[in-house]
């Protein structure tokens, strides 16, 4: 009994060596300047957080989900805090693809170093197809993230994400219409995440992103009412990280597709855990709300770690756990 062992604090690791680690990474042939991205729905289209961080420093901005027409979303309360995280049931409120193409895309194009990944949602396969085709007209959009796993909308969405055959069908259908590579966003609310990953791969998906939020519930014991109008909400935040890391690892073992990993990432240490588990890039989600500088701080922390351990290329870390 000589005292417990825990990880040392990473931030002590940075030093002033002259060489610079190569942070570049790629997903489905798209090259990113670094692996730090934003989780759909937590970062809008970047406008709000542009006040806090230089969007040009991010690997990519992954936008809030956009549908073929405006969606009003769910009634309030839509969010609630839980231990180490939060629940949300926004219900994919969005202004629709027309406004998005006129307003959000031009805004994001200003940041030339940062790639644009658009999250696509719909209630029917045709909804998705419509949006995917519209986005095909815009070469500045590098990658499409297909949201088949939002737990907060009644129709469509999650239905496609919890059955392997449904996921296979929508994936292969979208591949026929997509000009950009498509990345299927997987739901963690399944018995076997690898079954879903294999279905997406078999259907021709170019990449996978995981995890979406985990369905949770909070009850106000004093009013004896649900904390969220939708009753259930998607859980995010540091509390879910071990579940997300496990699923990223399982998927990385099961398929060859590149993975955008996310789920409770708050620090560079968290981000590196996902990369070691097999993620080619990572997204920061709910923690943007807690620390609006999180994305850039995580980027700097990853670089510090690579210097500390003399890792020349990010690719040397991807899936390097053993």
């Amino acid at each position, binding site marked *: 009994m000589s005292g417990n062992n825990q990880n040392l604090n990473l931030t002590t690791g940075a030093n002033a060596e002259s060489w610079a680690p190569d942070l570049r990474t790629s997903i489905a042939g798209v090259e990113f300047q670094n692996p730090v991205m934003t989780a759909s729905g937590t970062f809008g289209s970047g406008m709000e957080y542009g006040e806090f961080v230089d969007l040009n420093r991010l690997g990519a901005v992954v936008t809030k989900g956009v549908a073929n027409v405006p969606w009003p979303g769910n009634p*309030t309360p839509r969010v609630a805090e839980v231990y180490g995280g939060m629940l949300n049931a926004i219900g994919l409120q969005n202004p629709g693809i027309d406004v998005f193409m006129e307003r959000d895309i031009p805004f994001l194009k200003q940041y030339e170093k940062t790639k644009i990944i658009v999250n696509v949602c719909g209630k029917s396969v045709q909804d998705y197809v419509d949006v995917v085709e519209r986005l095909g007209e815009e070469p500045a959009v590098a990658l499409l993230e297909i949201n088949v796993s939002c737990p907060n909308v009644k129709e469509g969405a999650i239905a496609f994400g919890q059955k392997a055959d449904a996921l296979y069908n929508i994936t292969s259908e979208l591949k026929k219409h997509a000009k950009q590579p498509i990345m299927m966003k997987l739901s963690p609310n399944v018995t076997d995440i690898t079954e879903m990953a294999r279905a997406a791969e078999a259907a021709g998906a170019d990449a996978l992103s995981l995890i979406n939020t985990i369905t949770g519930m909070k009850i106000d014991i004093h009013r004896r009412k649900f904390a969220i109008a939708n009753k259930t909400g998607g859980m995010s935040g540091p509390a879910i990280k071990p579940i997300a890391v496990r699923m990223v690892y399982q998927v990385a073992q099961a398929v060859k597709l590149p993975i955008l990993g996310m789920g409770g990432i708050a620090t560079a240490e968290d981000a590196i855990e996902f990369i070691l588990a097999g993620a080619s890039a990572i997204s920061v989600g709910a923690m943007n709300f*807690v620390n609006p500088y999180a994305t850039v701080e995580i980027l700097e922390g990853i670089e510090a770690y690579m210097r500390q351990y003399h890792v020349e290329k990010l690719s040397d870390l991807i899936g390097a756990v053993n």
Partner: protein
Amino acid sequence: MKQKVTGIVTAQKEIAPSIFDLWIKTDLAKDVKPGQFAGVFTKDKSALLPRPISICEVNADRTELRIVYRIAGQGTKEFSGWQAGEEVQILGILGNGFPLEKGKGKKVFLMGGGIGIPPMLELAKELSADASGAEIQCVMGYRDAKTFLKKDLEQYGKVYVATEDGSVGTKGNVMDAIRENGITADVIFACGPMPMLRAIKAYAQEQGIPAYISLEEHMACGVGACLGCVVKTKEVDHHSHVHNARICTDGPVFEAGEVEI
């Protein structure tokens, strides 16, 4: 520009049962407008989201924020234990605040209910400081005789009080106080619980006067990104392109007629 900064507690005291009066030194105080709010962070890593709390006032040289809040859970309970000299994390300044210009030179009601009273103080101060000479009538609703901030408000205008238990002023709510005192106004600024705001909206409509009300809703980001804190609007709003305005960034203050409450 919005920032997350480290502020320093300069003073805190309990001014009514579980109502706390907290002063924080921070650069964010420089350009606060009445009715704006800040996101205050706990130090408890199990409770991560900022607590949105409206600014009560800023000191004369605009170096400190005053917030007056009620203990409503573990987060605010932690805040109430903060000591002078302690470093705290704040996100701000958030929201748009009250449209001061609508009150200039007018006969105004500043109406506050319970923990909705604090933001009225900075508003009263700035209106009274304005050359146009607005006539400020504060109508404040309390539970009981613990009429916190009443003296502060009296520096800037006449204060009418309503108490639920009738121990001070009119027995009842702020609407009862208006009737009992037979007072009128050209414009209303208000903050408080939803039933009060609904009553004010109805009153303003029947009087044909504008009412600017400050709304609240559960929030996550506080900066307009997450779309958690929306309110139904009469018109399709410019941002959402559906009938949903963001309380944190399009509000928290709305003209009562614009929102469905």
